[in-house]
C-alpha cells in the first residue's frame, strides 16, 4: 500500500470541518512552523524536501521561494493557483472539496515563510461550490484564531481571501492569474520581471499550485529530509494523479513518485485496467498539453525499460519517445478511440482559450483547429499532416506564455506517433465520418486484456 501524505484522511467523515481535521493532527504543522521555526528555516525544509511545483512546471518550490525579493516596507504576497482547468486534471478540485483545511494550513505555513501578511487563493470561477467550501473553512479557521491578528500568540498576522476567476484557462499561467487578480483581462505578462520581483500590485509575489502548498504540511510535520526519502531521484515525495478516460477506476490517486506506469494502470490499488475489456491504445500522462504516447511507449521506454511515474521517468527519451509529468492529468484511451478526433477536440480547446495576445497562438490554434476539423470530418488532404506540423512548429516557443507550446505539443506528438491514423482519415473519409476507425492494431498486443 502506497504511503499517503495528502489523502491519508480523505475518507474520514467530517474531515472538511476544522474539528475533525484538528483531531487528525491538522494545524500541528502550522503551529510547529510558527512557534519553533524561523521563516528562513521553513524555506530550508522545503528546499531539503526536493518538492517540485505540482502545477505542471516542476520547478523546485523551495528555490522559487528563496528568489522572492524582500525590500523593506514593501508587502509580499502569496497567491495560490487554484485555477485548475487543464483537461485531464482534477486533483486540486478534489482536494479543495474534501479537505480544504489542508490547503489553508499550507497557505499559513507558506505565507509565514515568505513574510506575506495577505494571501489569496485564486479559484477558477466555475468552481463556485469549492469557493463556498473554502470560504466556510477560512471562517472556521479565523474564528479559531488560526488566521487574522497575532495567530496563536506568535505575533504573526495573516489575512486569507478567496478570489473567483471568470472562466479562462489562461489564468492558470501565473502572470495572467496576477493580472486577473488585479481585475483585468488575463493576458500573460512578459517575463522578466518575474513575479518574485514584481508580481501582484508590482510587489514581490509567489504563485504556487494547490498541491504544492498542501505538500508543505507533511514536509514541516516530518521534516524535509524525510520527505525527500520518498520517491525516486529528483522526483521526491508523493504526487496526486487524476486519472480519467477509459479506465475501470478513474479518480484521484496519491502515488509515491516512481511507481511503474503499468502498475498504475493495471493494478487494483490504482486504476484497475482499461474499462469494458478493451485494450490500451494511448495515454496523455500529464494533462492535455503534454505529448500523447502510444501504449507501447507509455509502458516502456524506447530502450525497453519499464517506464515509471516520475518527472524524469515520463520524460525519458525526450519528446521523440517520451512525454512529461505535467500536472498529473492522466488520460487513457482505449482501442476504439479516435486520435484525430481527440486532437481536434484538444486543439479546439486551446483555440478557444487563447488570450489572443500573441499572433502565433491566436491565429495558429485557429488554423490547426480548422485543418483537424476537416480531417476528422472527411475533407482532409494528405498534405494536411505536414501543414499541421509546420504550424505547430511556428507556434511553439514563439509566444509570451506556454499556452502556445501547450497547443502545439499535442498536435505534433499525435502526428508523430499516429500519422497513419491521420492518413487513414484522408483515404477513408466516409468511414472516418461514421466513426469507424478500424485501427485497433494500435493497441499494444503485449498489453494485458481484461476478461
Amino acid at each position: 500500500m502506497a504511503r499517503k501524505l495528502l489523502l491519508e484522511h480523505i475518507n474520514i467523515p467530517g474531515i472538511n470541518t476544522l474539528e475533525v481535521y484538528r483531531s487528525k493532527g491538522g494545524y500541528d504543522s502550522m503551529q510547529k512552523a510558527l512557534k519553533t521555526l524561523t521563516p528562513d528555516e521553513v524555506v530550508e525544509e522545503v528546499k531539503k524536501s526536493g518538492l517540485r511545483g505540482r502545477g505542471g512546471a516542476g520547478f523546485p518550490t523551495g528555490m522559487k521561494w528563496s528568489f522572492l525579493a524582500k525590500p523593506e516596507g514593501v508587502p509580499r504576497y502569496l497567491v495560490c493557483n487554484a485555477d485548475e482547468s487543464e483537461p485531464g486534471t482534477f486533483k486540486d478540485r478534489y482536494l479543495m472539496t474534501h479537505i480544504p483545511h489542508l490547503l489553508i494550513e499550507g497557505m499559513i505555513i507558506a505565507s509565514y515563510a515568505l513574510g506575506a501578511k495577505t494571501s489569496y487563493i485564486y479559484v477558477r470561477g466555475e468552481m463556485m461550490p469549492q469557493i463556498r467550501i473554502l470560504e466556510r473553512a477560512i471562517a472556521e479557521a479565523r474564528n479559531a484564531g488560526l488566521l487574522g491578528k497575532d495567530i496563536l500568540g506568535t505575533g504573526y498576522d495573516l489575512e486569507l481571501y478567496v478570489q473567483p476567476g471568470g472562466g479562462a484557462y489562461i489564468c492558470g499561467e501565473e502572470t495572467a492569474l496576477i493580472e486577473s487578480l488585479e481585475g483585468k483581462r488575463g493576458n500573460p505578462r512578459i517575463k522578466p520581471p518575474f513575479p518574485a520581483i514584481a508580481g501582484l500590485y508590482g510587489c514581490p509575489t509567489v504563485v504556487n499550485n494547490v498541491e504544492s502548498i498542501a505538500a508543505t504540511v507533511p514536509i514541516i510535520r516530518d521534516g524535509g529530509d524525510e520527505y525527500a526519502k520518498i520517491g525516486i531521484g529528483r522526483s521526491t515525495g508523493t504526487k496526486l494523479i487524476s486519472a480519467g478516460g477509459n479506465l475501470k477506476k478513474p479518480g484521484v490517486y496519491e502515488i509515491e513518485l516512481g511507481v511503474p506506469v503499468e502498475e498504475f494502470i493495471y493494478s487494483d490499488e490504482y486504476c484497475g485496467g482499461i474499462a469494458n475489456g478493451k485494450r490500451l491504445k494511448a495515454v496523455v500522462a500529464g494533462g492535455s498539453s503534454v505529448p500523447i504516447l502510444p501504449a507501447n511507449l507509455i509502458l516502456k521506454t524506447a530502450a525497453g525499460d519499464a517506464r515509471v511515474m516520475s518527472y524524469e521517468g515520463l520524460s525519458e527519451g525526450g519528446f521523440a519517445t517520451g512525454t512529461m509529468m505535467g500536472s498529473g492529468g492522466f488520460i487513457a484511451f482505449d482501442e476504439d478511440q479516435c486520435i484525430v478526433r481527440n486532437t481536434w477536440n484538444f486543439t479546439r480547446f486551446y483555440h478557444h482559450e487563447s488570450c489572443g495576445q500573441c499572433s502565433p497562438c491566436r491565429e495558429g490554434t485557429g488554423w490547426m483547429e480548422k485543418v483537424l476539423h476537416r480531417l476528422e470530418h472527411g475533407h482532409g488532404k494528405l498534405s494536411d499532416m505536414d501543414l499541421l506540423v509546420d504550424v505547430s512548429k511556428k507556434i511553439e516557443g514563439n509566444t509570451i506564455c506556454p499556452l502556445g507550446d501547450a497547443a502545439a505539443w499535442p498536435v505534433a506528438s499525435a502526428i508523430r506517433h499516429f500519422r497513419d491514423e491521420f492518413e487513414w482519415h484522408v483515404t477513408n473519409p466516409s468511414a472516418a465520418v461514421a466513426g469507424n476507425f478500424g485501427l485497433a492494431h494500435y493497441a499494444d498486443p503485449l498489453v494485458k486484456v481484461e476478461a
Partner: protein
Amino acid sequence: MLRVENVTHEPVEFSPALLAQFADFVSRYPEGKQKSALLPALHAVQAEFGWVSAPAMDKVAEYLKIEPIEVYEVATFYTMYFLKPQGKYMLEVCRTGPCCLVGAEKIMDHIEQKLGVKEGEVTADGMFSWRGVECLAACGFGPVLQIGPEYTFYENLTPESVDQLISDLKAKENN
C-alpha cells in the same frame, strides 16, 4: 458603446445586499486596489440579475471608481459572464476531451432534443438554456454538467439522469 447582443439601456438599481457584497469585496485588497473586486462584483451582479447588462457594468465602474471600458473589457474576456439574458437555469456541459471519451457529445445532443432549443438559445418558458463549455475539472467522473446560478455539479451523466434533472428543476419551479 459596448457591442453586445440585445443591448438594454434600462437603468438598474443595485440592492443594499449587493452593495454590501461589493463593500466586502473591496475590503479584501490594499487601499487604491479596489479594481481587484471587479471579477467578484460581476459574479454578484450576474447572480442577482441573471446576466450582466451594459447599464449594470456602468454602475459597477462607478462604484469601483474605474472607467466603464475597464469593466467591458473584462466582461467580454471571461466566459462566465452573460452579456444577454439566459434561461433561469443554464446547463453547462463539459465538451472537452476526457468527457467526450465517455459520452459528453451524446449528452449535449440529448439536452438539445429534450429542451428543444439549440446551444445558446432560451426555452419558450424562459427556464432553460444550455451550452458546451471547456474543461470543468472533473475528468474522471464524466460526462459532467453544472447548473447556474448556483453552479451545482452533476457527474457520470446518462440521458436518463439528465431527464430526471430537468424534471426536478421543472417541479421545483411549479411548487
